[in-house]
């Protein structure tokens, strides 16, 4: 078996707000193998995006990663920082949560890159698309001409204020080189944008949503990353365009061999793209397995609920949609309690679910696990909560 390129264990990210602590991501384990597409699926507010941002080290104040390891396999990178940060290095792996900010920053674009949900708001409206892609190319170009071993050692910024001032007076002294601009054109061509020569000079508002998402893919590929994180890459797009963008991601993955971490609420996208899936609920991964594990033998009642709420258009007259009752729970620490976060929406909640949630447990195969007593202990009807239990007790928070 291949070693994973990214091995996340116990990742915990919290937001410390005025109203209290928000447990956005709790104890998430996730591995991604080279060239693999792993999906993370869940409702909005389940912590999927924060997980992605935590990997990129882009969690914004007042958020903080409070625990866990994010181990990234890259022998060259490990060797380059072994001397300065020996604690973070373990063989070919580097624990990204144990290295300083500027080292993590140096991995953005070149090791990890990201595609965002809404392409229209993820491009700077006042800079041409070509220039923005060329910036990403330039980041990669400078990283290769300035070896990691050097950049990891020096804390001196590679780009200084004086450079910026110079570039405002002499446009030719700008950050982005001419060759990077040329590269931006060929990247646009690669992602299937017609007339790339003309398109590079246009602003984001002159692009359609689908074209702009393609441009974003081009931008994310510019650094030839090991892992591409796609956060709801198709949510803001029309259905037909969605399929095109997914197709594009598939093709590019086949060509470049990067791993993809696909974050989505759309099980259809997961089925189409992913090999393995993690189902996220209330900041935790409640079930994980291969795509067939999850779709054919879902173990966690939440996963079952998710699959039940996919419209079935094949059966004429069809079964009625079965939405999951209730709402996504609050992630506010004080309101979460110790019970299983899904208990109040779970059709098979039991007494013991209220005391302490189950650990992740094997279900069927080695790779298929779910965090539920139904899997580990089975359903005990005598323990079942009476109907309307949560309404009467005010939600047991």
């Amino acid at each position, binding site marked *: 078996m291949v070693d994973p390129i990214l091995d996340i264990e116990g990742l915990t990210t919290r937001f410390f707000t005025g109203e209290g602590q928000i447990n956005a991501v709790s104890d998430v384990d996730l591995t991604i193998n080279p060239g693999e597409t792993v999906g993370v699926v869940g409702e909005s507010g389940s912590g999927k995006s924060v997980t992605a941002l935590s990997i990129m080290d882009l969690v914004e104040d007042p958020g903080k990663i409070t625990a866990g390891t994010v181990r990234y396999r890259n022998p060259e990178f490990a060797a380059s920082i072994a001397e300065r940060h020996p604690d973070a290095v373990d063989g070919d792996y580097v624990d990204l949560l144990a290295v300083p900010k500027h080292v993590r920053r140096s991995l953005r674009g070149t090791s990890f890159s*990201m595609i965002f949900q809404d392409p229209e*708001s*993820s491009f700077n409206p006042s800079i041409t698309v070509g220039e923005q892609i060329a910036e990403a190319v330039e980041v990669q170009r400078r990283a290769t001409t300035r070896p990691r071993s050097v950049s990891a050692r020096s804390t001196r910024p590679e780009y200084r204020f004086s450079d*910026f001032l110079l570039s405002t007076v002499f446009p030719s002294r700008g950050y982005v080189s001419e060759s990077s601009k040329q590269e931006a054109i060929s990247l646009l061509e690669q992602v299937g944008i017609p007339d790339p020569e003309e398109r590079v000079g246009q602003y984001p508002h002159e692009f359609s949503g689908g074209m702009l998402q393609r441009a974003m893919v081009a931008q994310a590929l510019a650094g030839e990353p090991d892992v591409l994180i796609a956060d709801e890459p198709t949510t803001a797009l029309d259905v037909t365009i969605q399929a095109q963008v997914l197709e594009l991601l598939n093709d590019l993955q086949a060509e470049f061999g990067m791993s993809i971490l696909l974050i989505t609420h759309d099980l259809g996208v997961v089925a189409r793209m992913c090999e393995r899936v993690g189902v996220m609920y209330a900041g935790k991964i409640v079930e994980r397995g291969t795509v067939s594990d999850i779709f054919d033998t879902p173990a966690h009642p939440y996963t079952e609920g998710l699959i039940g709420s996919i419209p079935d258009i094949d059966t004429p007259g069809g079964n009625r949609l079965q939405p999951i009752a209730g709402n996504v729970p609050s992630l506010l620490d004080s309101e979460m309690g110790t019970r299983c976060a899904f208990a109040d929406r779970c059709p098979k909640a039991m007494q013991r679910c209220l005391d302490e949630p189950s650990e992740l447990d094997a279900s069927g195969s080695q790779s298929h696990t779910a965090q539920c007593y139904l899997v580990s202990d089975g359903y005990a009807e005598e323990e079942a909560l009476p109907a309307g239990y949560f309404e009467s007790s005010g939600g047991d928070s």
Partner: protein
Amino acid sequence: MSIAKFLTKRLLQGIFVLWGVVTILFGLRAVSPGDPATLMLGEGASRELIQQVREAEGLNDPVYIQYADYVQGLLVGDLGYSWRSERDVALMVIERIPATLELALAATVVAMVIAIPLGVISATRRDTPADYSATLFSLLGISTPNFWLGLMLILVLGVWAGLFPTGRRPVGLGPAVLTLAETGSISELTTWIHYIALPAVTLGTYFTALITRLTRSGMIDELGKPYVTATEAKGLPELLVRYKHVLRNTMIPIVTVLGLQLGTLMGGAVITETVFNWPGLGQRLIDALDARDWPLMQGIIVFIAVAFVAINIAVDAVYSYVDPEVALE
């Protein structure tokens, strides 16, 4: 829309605005009390002399003819003659433009150089002592009256510390630069800088404070937008994210205020010029008002209106550069 078409359209609008200004000015003069001829000649003038002047100045003509004469004069650049000094008003305005322009630009430069970095620091280090100091500074700057600040600067830095000269400046920028070109001596230029420093700071303080606040709030707004995260995600150096991306978008409202402010300053900073005895348009306007010297007053105000309109057209043109989504409309 092409730039030529845009400019033509805005120029036509500008002309319409100017026509309005001129007409209102003329109307005010027509209804204001007091006989110009008496004003010109003084209380003791004989009835015949006054009548003679009224005739010569066209004051006995019907108002619409006076108006037509006035507008016709304006069209060929004839602003009339000052009632007080009997000099050509156009000349009296033009000779005061350099000092006003120098002060306006110096104040703007002071403001931009201090305010933008201060606003950026304030926004990127929110809720730190640096931010609190900047916020306090801008609050003080906005609430300090100009005349008081000017007097204090003269008193403290000029009189007590003796760092800066007080009184009317001996040399303007133009002559100072000429001297530099001819003789290579920079002494006149340094004198000029010494004299303009305090008025520029006085005039620029409010503006600095305003731009600091605008930059801070604009940056904070922009920093929260998704494209900032996306730009950081591609590994761009933080400095570029802040200045090339975020600050650039923050500049849009700043350019607006800059234009409006510059337009206002072109009318001369009346208070600052008075406090520092600065030979600019503002001071001349006050003198004209004191003497009820209508032609001079009108001439200055028409010039201010022209400058204001011109600067605003320029600002709109700059907009389309800063914000490509604002097509020239």
